[in-house]
């Protein structure tokens, strides 16, 4: 009888504890399951060092692709990411690295990308390389880009505009489509920073 009472009490307590447990937090971004290692990056960083994701192991890395002559998508994306880092606060933002890879290696060299990204946040690191290196990076990340010629001979590039969220262990956890506000990034970064 006493054993039954104890068992019932334990079961009741377990049920209460379960009911009180907060639901698992879900990301605002699209989630990839199971988590797999993020595709490799073998480029040159705008700080002059080789650009690999391994360099940022232990940090949450936001990877995106674009180009410095972009007039619409890239400035909005970069301003959003800079805003998210500011909202996170200095301490948490130290563990967040933005990596922006050019899809326009013919015009974007390290100096140009550094100046472009620095206007949004001096901690942002750009990825540059030869056409072959950029093509390889785009292929492994599933990035498309299409050159659109202007009548004056100049060109713009339509490109994939999602932002990839890589966790501290180098796993590609989620993909945030273009257009989400900074608050959504802050929400997801807090979850990823907690590990």
């Amino acid at each position: 009888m006493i054993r039954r009472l104890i068992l019932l009490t334990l079961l009741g307590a377990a049920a209460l504890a379960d009911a009180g447990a907060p639901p698992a937090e879900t990301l605002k971004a699209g989630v990839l399951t199971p988590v797999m290692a993020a595709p490799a990056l073998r480029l040159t960083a705008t700080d002059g060092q080789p650009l690999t994701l391994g360099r940022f192991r232990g940090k949450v890395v936001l990877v995106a692709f674009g180009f410095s002559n972009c007039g619409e998508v890239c400035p909005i994306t970069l301003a959003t990411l800079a805003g998210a880092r500011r909202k996170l606060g200095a301490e948490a933002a130290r563990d967040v690295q933005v990596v922006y890879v050019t899809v326009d290696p013919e015009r974007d060299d390290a100096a140009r990308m550094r100046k472009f990204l620095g206007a949004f946040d001096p901690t942002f690191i750009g990825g540059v390389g030869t056409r072959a290196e950029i093509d390889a990076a785009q292929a492994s990340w599933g990035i498309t880009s299409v050159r659109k010629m202007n009548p004056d001979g100049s060109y713009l590039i339509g490109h994939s505009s999602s932002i990839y969220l890589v966790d501290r262990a180098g796993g590609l956890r989620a993909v945030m489509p273009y257009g989400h506000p900074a608050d959504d990034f802050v929400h997801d970064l807090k979850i990823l920073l907690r590990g």
Partner: protein
Amino acid sequence: MRRVFRIPLLAVAALVVVGLGWAGFAPIEVATHEHSFDIPKGTWARRRAGDLVEILPDHIRLTLGLDAVLVIRNHDDVPQTFGPTIMMPGQSFSLPFERAASYQFTCTAHASGSLTIDVEPEPVTPWARIRWRVREWWENRKR
């Protein structure tokens, strides 16, 4: 003659009123909030052989509060790029939407090169519920 038809007509009218009342006021319940698509094994090989196999339509309509989570599962042997991401073999991608809008993604799987996802607001008014139910019924009938 008119009296003969009066009772059946009243019965039909009552049924229509009850039906519209149910369709407009009963909460919509869905089995899952996910709107799922599967990429079957062998898709890449079929495409390579010239088969224009379609997995995702060019336009997808989702409704907030009902099926606003797009799920794509890659059962193929090769990575697949659909909409905003690349998926490795065996991986699935679950993308929640929280705002009603039209979203356009680059998508190499389509001839148009793009995938449009129209996210509609949750049907909360009676008229919106009726419209949603009628459209669902019509689309299920077509399938």
